[in-house]
């Protein structure tokens, strides 16, 4: 049991971290009333920027390279997300459609530039990815230490911590109250003097930053390079985590961890006698099936923010 946990939990954490980060972005955006199907594209952008920056500046920044890479990916991610904000906030675009376009655009730009800059469809592997480490002191705690603090990526902790920060911001601060108000009833927020468009821009930009962070963390902990196949569906899983987690930062975190656990189990299972007999395909579809069952069974009535997906026209009805 102990050993099973010790091998599963770190894998769950590294698998889930990019999903958690991206899902947090989704929570911000959707809580403000802007549907974000474009998380996948934001992750693509993050992965692309993270890898390219890492490859280009590894010599300059040394051991700080991965950290600066994810920072830059956050910045570029949020700049990129402005497109979504402009379309869906300023031009009242259908937000789902704009998100789909974001996905196509990010992949198109990423691969196009990779080909133009590197002359091939995928980059080399980076020399400065993130590595796991044992957390000093904490790792020495008996039982808990080895399970939670050995062989862990700091970025995984970053993801968990940011989930709590996001919760605090959304549910304890004026900013969060306003952001949620804008997503529930923008006109009410407007009459209270809250700038609806500005809040939504901020929220979408945050989703860009988190998506960029999630994508670059994925790239620098798991993939190590960038190609058209680096991000294939992780953004959609993050979106699933947003909804599964009822648009709540901690819920989204829980959902992402759950996906990680399901994936991890599907790998570990071959060593567990009972699970080993299950056809491979069942294990492959388990995470998706479980999500559907969970949505249908336990949280069937997840209420989306009421104004989610509805452009706000001043003076409209």
């Amino acid at each position, binding site marked *: 049991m102990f050993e099973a946990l010790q091998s599963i939990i770190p894998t769950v954490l590294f698998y889930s971290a990019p999903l958690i980060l991206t899902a947090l972005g989704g929570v911000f955006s959707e809580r403000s009333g802007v549907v974000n199907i474009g998380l996948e594209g934001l992750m693509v952008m993050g992965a692309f920027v993270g890898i390219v920056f890492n490859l280009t500046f590894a010599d300059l920044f040394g051991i700080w390279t991965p950290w600066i890479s994810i920072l830059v990916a956050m910045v570029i991610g949020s700049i990129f997300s402005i497109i979504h904000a402009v*379309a869906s906030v300023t031009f009242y675009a259908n937000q789902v459609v704009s998100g789909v376009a974001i996905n196509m655009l990010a992949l198109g730009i990423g691969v196009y530039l990779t080909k133009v800059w590197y002359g091939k469809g995928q980059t080399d592997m980076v020399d400065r990815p993130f590595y796991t480490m044992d957390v000093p002191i904490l790792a020495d705690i008996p039982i808990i230490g080895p399970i939670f603090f050995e062989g862990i990526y700091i970025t995984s902790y970053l993801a968990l911590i940011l989930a709590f920060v996001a919760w605090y911001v959304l549910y304890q601060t004026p900013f969060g109250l306003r952001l949620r108000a804008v997503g529930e009833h923008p006109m009410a927020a407007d009459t209270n003097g809250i700038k609806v468009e500005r809040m939504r821009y901020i929220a979408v930009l945050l989703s860009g930053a988190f998506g960029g962070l999630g994508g670059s963390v994925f790239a620098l902990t798991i993939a190590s390079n960038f190609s058209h196949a680096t991000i294939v569906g992780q953004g959609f899983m993050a*979106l*699933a985590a947003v909804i599964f987690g009822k648009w709540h930062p901690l819920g989204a975190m829980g959902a992402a961890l759950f996906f990680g656990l399901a994936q991890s189990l599907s790998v570990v299972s071959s060593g567990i006698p009972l699970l080993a007999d299950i056809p491979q395909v069942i294990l492959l579809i388990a995470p998706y099936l479980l999500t559907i069952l969970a949505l249908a069974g336990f949280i069937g009535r997840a209420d989306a923010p009421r104004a989610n997906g509805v452009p706000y026209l001043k003076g409209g009805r």
Partner: protein
Amino acid sequence: MTSNSKHFGLLVPIISVIIGLIAGAIIMLLSGHNPIEGYAALWAGAFGDSYTIGETIRRSTPLILTGLAVAFAFKTGLFNIGAEGQVIVGWLAAVWIGLAIDAPMIIHLPVAILAGAIAGGLWGFLPGLLKAKLGVHEVIITIMMNYIALHVTNAIIRNVLTDQGTTTEPIAGTASLASEWLQSITFYSRIHYGILIALFAAFIMWFIIERTSYGYELKAVGFNRHASNYAGMNVSKNIILSMVIGGGFAGLAGAMEGLGTYGTISVMSGFTNLGFDGIAVALLGANNAFGVILAGLLFGVLKEGAGEMPTTAGVPTELVDIIIALIIFFVASSYIIRWALSRFKKEGK
């Protein structure tokens, strides 16, 4: 005002496409390519000769159908992001019937096509049911269903349709949409009769939505569920029906690939993207059957033509993805275009 908005309705997509192409040209310039060469290559790749024209039509066929799949659900206020999975199961079912049954063409081909549509419809049924009965977000369920379709289909190909192989045998000739005649006049392109099915499907959609009481109900439910319930419509039934019919169109798109283009189905390492492209097609076509046909053809042209760009002009094919994405943005943000147009008009006066 009404005639004006009709004009706008047409102008917006056209202007969007033009801006998209201009943006593409600028990107080519910035990355050191010659846009004229690039677009010439694109043109040649799509219309260069009878072969490319045949391939362009072939490529448009499933795009029209997935566009209809998304558009139909949209009319009922549902977002069918699951066209992708529905395509896959439709493809599988059609090929399966194509392989398993021995019958004259007049029976075999329709049954195989229908099988594709039914499979896609079933794949739309579950999300529809969950949405109707439990209020579960259809976007998320259809995303999950896409992955399930992919993995289950692969497992079936490997374990049932082949003996651990990756590609099935070709389907029986009696189930094939391919046409030697069509191929021979297009230098052996893979054009097949599916395009007629796609056009017919578009007509069916137009007819159901615009002319029948079913369409009236579907749209009413899409606009206002409470009022539809008040008016005595069965809201759940309509939601499910919409997803099933939408799924059926996507399943047909899969059948086109299975019975027309390939004649087989192979283990897939990733999505076909036909379903996702369908979203773009539906949008550009304003969720209207006729618009979807035009949009499907346009995207077919762009995607087919893209193949020629790297070879002739050295431009990566991804440029076309960028252009398509930009076109979608402009259509979705049509407010800006409408605004600009009305400004333009005012000033003209």
